[in-house]
């Protein structure tokens, strides 16, 4: 049971999975071109998708051959993340931040994001975190919204600010 799981991990590491995802993207685009009309619409995308499929399949084939030969290069071919779950949390954190900013406004969401992330990372210097959390969003707001006139989502805090 354990060896089959190890085999699975060996053959389907993140490098292989990424290559497979890119292959699927090329395949989907290749198939989609057959629903297009007009040679200028489909010719180049079809050519590109076709070449892309050939290249990604070659990558997989080369990798498979290395695995079956057991060459050391295969084992080192991908640099596995130290903690994949950490990155997943960060990506979810970024998604939450991007979603919330629409409703709470830039300053409040960014302040909360800094405090929450520091807590999640177990960063202990509380005075620094509180100060940065309060100051950084306001400084960014003044620089980008007031000076550069960039539209950022307003919220409760922005309504109170005089600038």
């Amino acid at each position, binding site marked *: 049971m354990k060896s089959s799981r190890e085999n699975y991990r060996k053959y389907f590491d*993140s490098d292989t999975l990424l290559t497979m995802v890119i292959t699927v993207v090329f395949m989907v685009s290749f198939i989609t071109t057959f629903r297009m009309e007009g040679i200028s619409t489909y010719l180049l995308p079809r050519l590109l998708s076709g070449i892309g499929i050939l290249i990604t399949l070659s990558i997989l084939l080369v990798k498979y051959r290395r695995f079956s030969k057991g060459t050391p290069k295969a084992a080192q071919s991908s640099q596995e*993340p130290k903690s994949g779950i950490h990155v997943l949390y*960060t990506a979810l954190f*970024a998604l939450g*931040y991007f979603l919330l900013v629409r409703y709470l406004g830039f300053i409040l969401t960014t302040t909360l994001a800094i405090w929450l992330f520091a807590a999640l990372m177990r960063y202990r210097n509380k005075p620094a975190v509180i100060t940065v959390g309060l100051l950084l969003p306001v400084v960014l707001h003044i620089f980008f919204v007031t000076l550069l006139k960039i539209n950022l989502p307003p919220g409760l805090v922005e309504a109170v600010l005089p600038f």
Partner: protein
Amino acid sequence: MTAVLSDAFLMILTLKGFLHLLIGGVLGLIIGIFPGLGPVFGVALFLPFTFWMKPELGLVFLGSLYSCCVYGGSITAVLLGIPGTPGSITTVFDGYEISKKGKAGVALGLSVTASLLGGILGVAALAFFAPILAKFALKFGPADYFALALFGLSMVAVAAKGDTLKGLALGILGVLISTIGIDLITGDYRFTFGFEYLVGGIPFIPVAIGLFALSQAFVLAEEGGKIARPGRVSGGVWEGVVLVFKHWGTTVKHAVLGIILGAIPGVGINITNFLAYLIEKRSSKDPNSFGQGNPLGVIAPESANNACVSAELIPAFALGVPGGASAAIFLAAINIYGLKPGYGFFSESGPVAYALIIGLFFAQFLFFIIGIFGANYFAKVTLTPAAIMVPAIMALSLIGGLADRTLFADLYVVLIFGVFGYISHKNQYPIACLVLGLILGPLVEENFYRALQIGKGSFFYFFSTGISISVWIMIIIVLIWGLLPVKEWSRKIMERKSAPQ
């Protein structure tokens, strides 16, 4: 020409021009000092904020940020033994050794002066060669441009860190992504899958921010902690400055090397830095002193990589074919400002083009002054913990993602490409190729169909001119070099030859 230059000077020599130069330079230094955040991160992140600036000021801001960022990496390389950017890796070998002997000031003087001189020669090369190359490009037809764009892509795929096949796959994916949206010839929708958002195509800015900025936030979150301990400047800075002028021949030699390598698409700062160091070490009478604190081990890579910075922009501005990710972002900037690369960039919008070149020239002096007087303070940036840097990068990515169109859907593009960039980075997929494909996509498509129209549907037209045939031959050579184990074969042949009979 004189009128164009005086117009360009008038554009820059204002308080606004100076402020753009200064702010860009300071931001560049901070980004360059922070390990992991390189010049591509900087120009990608700050590109959307330049849309509100006048083109010349926006380009000066980006140019200053780019130049200072490349130098910024050397400050931590010298003071802390940590290269801020991959372009300053070899500076650590001797620069940090000099610092460890209590002469950090000398090492800093060496790196900043060599960077200044290399940078000035690089800017001179950009000013001199780019207009000449652009004039020559007037002879190019669609088949030539098509071949040239493919050459740029294949060079970057071969030269980029990682697998050549992976680079090619990402380059093609980039061109394919650029075809999403309305087909400009027939007006038909392509790959929109019923999403209204995709009708306008995938916007470049959120993709670049995701790939180069947000992905770094994931890397920092993974690594955690803080980057370094504080460093101190000790010893005479001016001693280092004088040493560079004593070895002026080495400085100029490696600046020329940097210019040549920088102008070749795909080579870039990282390779130039290593090559300069290795060439200097090999040609030295005392190669064993390298890695022990030899000043030439700092002068050679620093002069080369800063000369390379401006030289990288030569093919981008003259031909519209960027040599790397940073140049691709500069090309995106000039497209967004409504300017066109090529001969027109230097003739019709000459003052803007020369304003950028003058801005790059002044940026060299800016980092020289800041490097000499403020390196101690800037090095403290490395003490910022990841727990604060990560949300700060997220906030800047959010602002950058919204800056162009204030569309929240763009933030999802930032996030998707951020995750994709992180996974690609971890698996040796060179993401620069994707960006290059994305930026070259319209050039590839336009010239592909124009060539087919002129050739009346015949693919032979792609090989009909002398230029296109030469470029195709170069593409084949580059791909053979990248895909076949040529180096291994030549090593085996050499071994066989040197083996006793």
